[in-house]
């Protein structure tokens, strides 16, 4: 590694990182002006409305889920997954292209120990805050301004993970 130029090393790191952390990375190879991103703001807005209207961002609903006292959240996540599986199957089967004519790309995830350790840690935090990352943004939007502290702490947690990443088991 040491005798390779830096750019290559960075590329390798980026590749390894993407491999470990394949969620959420942009697969489109097209370059668009920034305002093309406004359509994602609209999709996010729709998501925010569903979050509040179905009480998914409610701390109480999350407690009921983890205490097995209500079917609501299981119904939400279960039916979302069912629709997701069907949609992905149809996109693959009929080779449906994006609105820009690109092939839709799917990435396989490689298992690592972080899925277990990190997943468990996130579960603890989810039950404490009553929110996964998406609902944190929606909760702030509904006027619970103190949740900005929780969000900031989550960003700090992400940063600390990045700092110690090489020392953690994967």
């Amino acid at each position: 590694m040491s005798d390779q130029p830096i750019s290559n090393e960075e590329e390798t790191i980026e590749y390894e990182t993407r491999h470990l952390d394949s969620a959420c990375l942009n697969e489109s190879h097209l370059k668009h002006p920034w305002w093309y991103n406004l359509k994602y703001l609209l999709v996010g807005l729709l998501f925010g409305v569903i979050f509040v209207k179905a009480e998914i961002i409610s701390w109480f609903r999350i407690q009921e889920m983890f205490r097995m006292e209500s079917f609501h959240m299981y119904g939400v996540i279960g039916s979302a997954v069912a629709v997701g599986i069907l949609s992905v199957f149809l996109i693959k089967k009929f080779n449906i292209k994006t609105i820009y004519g690109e092939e839709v790309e799917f990435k396989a995830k490689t298992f690592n120990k972080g899925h277990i350790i990190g997943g468990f840690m996130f579960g603890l935090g989810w039950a404490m805050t009553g929110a996964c990352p998406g609902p944190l943004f929606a909760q702030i939007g509904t006027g619970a301004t103190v949740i900005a502290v929780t969000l900031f702490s989550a960003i700090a947690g992400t940063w600390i993970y990045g700092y110690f990443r090489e020392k953690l088991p994967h």
Partner: protein
Amino acid sequence: MNWLFQPWPWYIAGPLIGLIVPLLLLIGNKTFGISSSLRHMCAACLPANIPFFKYDWKKEAWNLFFVGGILVGGFLTVLLIPNKGAVDVTPALAKDLATYGITDYSGLVPAQLFTWSTLLSVKGLLLMVGGGFLVGFGTRYAGGCTSGHAISGLSNLQLPSLIATCCFMAGGFLMANFILPIILSL
């Protein structure tokens, strides 16, 4: 139009959320996921020469627009089509919460736990600062959150995502049933 002001049932909300997966794929080849936005914020604001944050975050800016939209969506819903009345809490949960003095269900976020005035109590610090830290550290270590693993990952039948989702649930069960009662009694 009455339904607009009532809480939506799971069989409306769940399928709509599921449709976000193909929607994002088809309008720009984007994989549904939210916790990465926290990483992009680190990369944008304080990369500090850490390899994990040295990448072209601007290429992923769509994700920041997406979470910005979620915030605006929450704001507009409360403004225009709020859920009428308090959260309908299951009797068993209500009974347990009452023993810790939590009786106000008027907000989706319990006002007796999550406010600026409780932030500096031991309970408040643990729940908001400690809980937030676990959410940020845990999701990145796991490589995704409920959206990236439980919804997108499972939609693409990824075994690592199933393992991660089971661990989310295990952590949540342990916290909600065994550790949270101790925190709430502090």
